[in-house]
């Protein structure tokens, strides 16, 4: 069995200065103050590199406030297509005076710092190149004051970075054209500043940057989109007709996107009549209440929230489960408990959501890992909710939801919508009988009628209290037990309906890795690094709960499996141990939490430490 000797792979730490240029393989961090409009500048730089055909990923590492506090934007440029966060950023744009000492300290030797020359004092480092750029004259030249002046100031670093990295101005123009949705007035005014700064850099900076972007053809036909936008698009093409929500970071932009797409696609331009409704509720309790009401009446209904909202929805989640009402709940996870780190990312809501509701509640969960899956699950979540007649939770996270990711264009959903077992008046006329909670097919899923169905047999009374097969109130022990066992049977059916895991296996794999969601990217990279050291691994990415036979079989094929996730207690590890108890001893939890997206370095080091410990133990024996 191969053992990893050198955990920290050499490229993970920065190289000392060399004369050899580093092409398309480095990371940039832009430090600004929150609320200064730096997002446009960051996106312009990110998208321009993307437009050069170079794989790139941007992550906004931002504080929980409205304005003024430090915020950092990480851009990873990777010819190999890696998109995970790196711990090291070789290039720094220091446009926040309050953090410049810290930001410069974090640069590796050989790094470059582009700073605002107006700052009063500067840290000194001999092994870092410091380039000051006079921002004030550009702002003065633009004639813009106040907030607009701030925005323009940020475009100054875009121009200077474009010069230093070798990004053609035409690519910045293309990027801004996308950003401003072809409103050329905005593009032109921003480009004027970018051009001036580019020219200034050309005339004044003598440093010959080691870090360069050179055109590739790796992003042709792809697009950049956030997970929340993708999820909203998926919901629209999944047929959402009712959404109720309460604002909460990081889920808000999902509903913002719905509020952008739905009026364009589902409102008659002439009459103004809509085939949808979006209601901003007074709180999360009302939001889920409304979507359960709408789901009961037969509409495709959804909400989007984050951890604190999920906890408020607990009682309704139980009602939805027990009354067997379809609804879709997106939980774009942030870090708890309580308010926790409200603008940081994590995967800490898994256990809570899986069992959300008092008594014996079990919820179906989907785990998207990419923007493409946000779109796909935007559709499938509705089909599953209708098919299983239960609330379906989709657990995304802040990293996926709010950051821009590369993707192939989304495929149009080819499968017709699955509305599940809905009985019409004509069906009732033919069958001559109806019992709302009768397990006719043995799969635990009963048939339902929708309110308004005029057939005399159709009406039934939904309730959170005990009921028999006819939905009539009952406290009879046998009725209760029968119903709860049927619900359990329905959950067994759900195992076969949730998306299968994605499995990648190597011959002679030393061990297996299990993960879900956005940790995949750090793990992909970590596995490549391990492979270079001769350590082959198997990988399974869960895409939903409850687990199915494929998951059990994968676990069964490995002597040990590392379960990687972003929380303290190893929540999916616990669920897997519970659901596959005979294999529990094989599962090793590698849970990590710091509020930031996972890095490959952490994964490699954590696995190496485990493997080394294991080796030690073996030799002690």
């Amino acid at each position, binding site marked *: 069995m191969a053992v990893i000797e050198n955990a920290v792979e050499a490229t993970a730490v920065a190289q000392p200065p060399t004369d050899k240029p580093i092409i398309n393989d480095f990371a940039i961090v832009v430090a600004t103050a929150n609320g200064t409009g730096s997002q446009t500048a960051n996106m312009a730089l990110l998208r321009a590199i993307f437009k050069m055909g170079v794989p790139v990923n941007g992550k906004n590492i931002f504080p929980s406030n409205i304005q003024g506090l430090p915020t950092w934007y990480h851009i990873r440029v990777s010819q190999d297509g890696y998109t995970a966060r790196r711990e090291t950023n070789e290039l720094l744009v220091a446009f926040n005076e309050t953090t410049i000492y810290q930001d410069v300290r974090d640069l590796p030797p050989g790094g470059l710092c582009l700073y605002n020359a107006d700052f009063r004092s500067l840290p000194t480092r001999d092994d870092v190149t410091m380039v000051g750029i006079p921002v004030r004259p550009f702002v003065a030249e633009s004639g813009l004051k106040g907030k607009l002046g701030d925005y323009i100031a940020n475009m100054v670093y875009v121009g200077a970075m474009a010069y230093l990295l070798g990004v053609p101005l035409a690519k910045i123009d293309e990027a801004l054209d*996308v950003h401003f949705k072809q409103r050329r007035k905005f593009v032109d005014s921003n480009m004027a500043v970018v051009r001036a700064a580019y020219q200034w850099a050309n005339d004044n900076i003598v440093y010959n940057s080691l870090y360069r972007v050179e055109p590739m053809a790796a992003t042709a036909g792809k*697009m950049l989109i956030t997970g929340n936008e993708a999820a909203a*698009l998926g919901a*629209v*093409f999944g047929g*959402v*007709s*009712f959404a*109720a929500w309460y604002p909460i970071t990081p889920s808000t932009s999902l509903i913002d996107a719905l509020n952008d*797409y739905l009026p364009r696609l*589902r*409102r*008659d331009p002439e009459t*103004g*009549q*809509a*085939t*949808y*409704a979006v*209601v901003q*509720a*007074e*709180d999360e*309790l*009302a*939001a889920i*209440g*409304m979507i*359960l*009401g*709408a*789901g*009961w*009446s*037969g*509409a495709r*209904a959804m909400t989007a929230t984050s951890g604190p909202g999920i906890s408020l929805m607990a009682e*309704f989640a139980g009602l939805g489960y027990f*009354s067997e009402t379809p609804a879709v709940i997106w939980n774009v996870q942030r870090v708890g408990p309580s308010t926790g780190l409200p603008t940081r990312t994590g995967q800490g809501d898994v256990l809570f959501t899986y069992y959300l509701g008092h008594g014996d509640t079990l919820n179906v969960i989907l785990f998207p890992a990419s923007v493409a899956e946000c779109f796909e699950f935007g559709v499938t979540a509705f089909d599953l909710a209708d098919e299983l007649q239960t609330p379906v939770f989709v657990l995304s996270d802040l990293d996926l939801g709010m950051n821009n990711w590369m993707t192939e264009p*989304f495929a*149009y*959903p080819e499968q017709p*919508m699955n509305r599940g077992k809905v009985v019409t008046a004509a069906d009732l006329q033919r069958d001559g009988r109806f019992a709302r909670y009768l397990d006719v097919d043995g799969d635990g899923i009963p048939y339902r*009628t*929708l*309110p*308004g*169905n*005029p*057939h*005399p047999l*159709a*009406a*039934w*009374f*939904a309730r*959170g*209290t005990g009921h028999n097969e006819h939905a*009539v*109130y009952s406290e009879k022990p046998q009725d209760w037990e029968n119903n709860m066992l049927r619900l359990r049977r329905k959950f067994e059916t759900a195992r076969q309906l949730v998306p299968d895991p994605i499995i990648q296996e190597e011959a002679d794999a030393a061990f297996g890795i299990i993960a879900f969601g956005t940790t995949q990217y750090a793990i992909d990279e970590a596995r490549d690094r391990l492979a270079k050291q001769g350590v082959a691994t198997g990988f399974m990415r869960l895409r939903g709960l409850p687990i199915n036979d494929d998951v059990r079989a994968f676990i069964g094929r490995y002597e040990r499996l590392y379960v990687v996730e972003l929380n303290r207690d190893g929540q999916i590890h616990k669920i897997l141990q519970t659901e596959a108890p005979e294999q529990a001893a094989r599962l090793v939890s590698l849970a990590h939490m710091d509020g930031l997206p996972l890095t490959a370095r952490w994964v490699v080091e954590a696995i190496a430490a485990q493997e080394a410990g294991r080796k030690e133990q073996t030799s002690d024996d």
Partner: protein
Amino acid sequence: MINETKRGKENKLGLTLKEYKGLPSTLCNGCGHNSIANQIVQVAYELDIEQHTILRMSGIGCSSKSPAYFLGGSFGFNSLHGRMPSIATGALMGNHSLHAIGVSGDGDTGSIGLGQFKHMVRRNVRMVYVVENNGVYGLTKGQFSATADEGQVLKYAGENEFPPVDLCMEAIVAGAGFVARSFSGDAKQVRELLKAALHFNGTAVLDIISPCVAFNNADTSTKSYGYGREHEAPLHDFGWVPPAEEIELNDLEPGETRLVEMHDGSFIRLQKLEEAYDPGNKIAALSRLQTAHDNQEFITGLIYLNESRPTLAEVNRMVATPLAQLGEEVLRPSRQALAALLTEF
């Protein structure tokens, strides 16, 4: 033939009164809630309502059991404590061709559900919202609710130290367009108010004092039968006239009777008992409620009426077809629409 004679009188749909009933009540004998349920049955029968067009909605509590006891042919949802408004809102957005009768209690609406109540009223969801108000928690055996009288003493709960929440005032302040108070012992008034409420285009709030015979029926309580019978002071004689019915002007005496036309062509007929009272004036309505509170009066009738607000479905400009009945061809935009959207990224 024998069956026919037993059936009783049929309405225009060919249904008898009995066919509008629900399950037998499990509430206490003499509970005011039963009387209200009976009036709902009577009204639905008289108005020839097709039961499948009505949703029965409730939260938790004695009152919220009521919907099981009327309109057994209707779909219903007995939801969570205080959360009926959100379920009803969603259900009626999913299918806005339906109407709903929601039944709630003073604990359900005035305490745990005050927020949802006020926000539903604010949104003007088209439904009848009945509060069966007895000032006490019956199902948990006798705690004060938020509408209990200040200074009132109950056997287990002791003395109530706090002023009552006036749900009519709360509804008016929140923007309700139809706010009435009544007494479950006044069957005729309850019936006429229910009819008018069913024809109101928005949230119609009926705060009906409905005595709890088990825990709050001492004559000292303003929520008791004794107090109600003794003190009920109607603001007007209240009547409702269906859209198709000719207005009998010979009934009316100028200056004393007022007709208010509803959006569907029906009329509310108010025969004034209090000369100065105008249910169209929001400030006057609030003022009258405050005076009643100060003087320990039990005023009943239509306290406030404003038909000008659009409903939630109207604000959202929803198509005539209910969302729940839209087909895939409407719900899923085209392949071209997706392709066009994706060019934006």
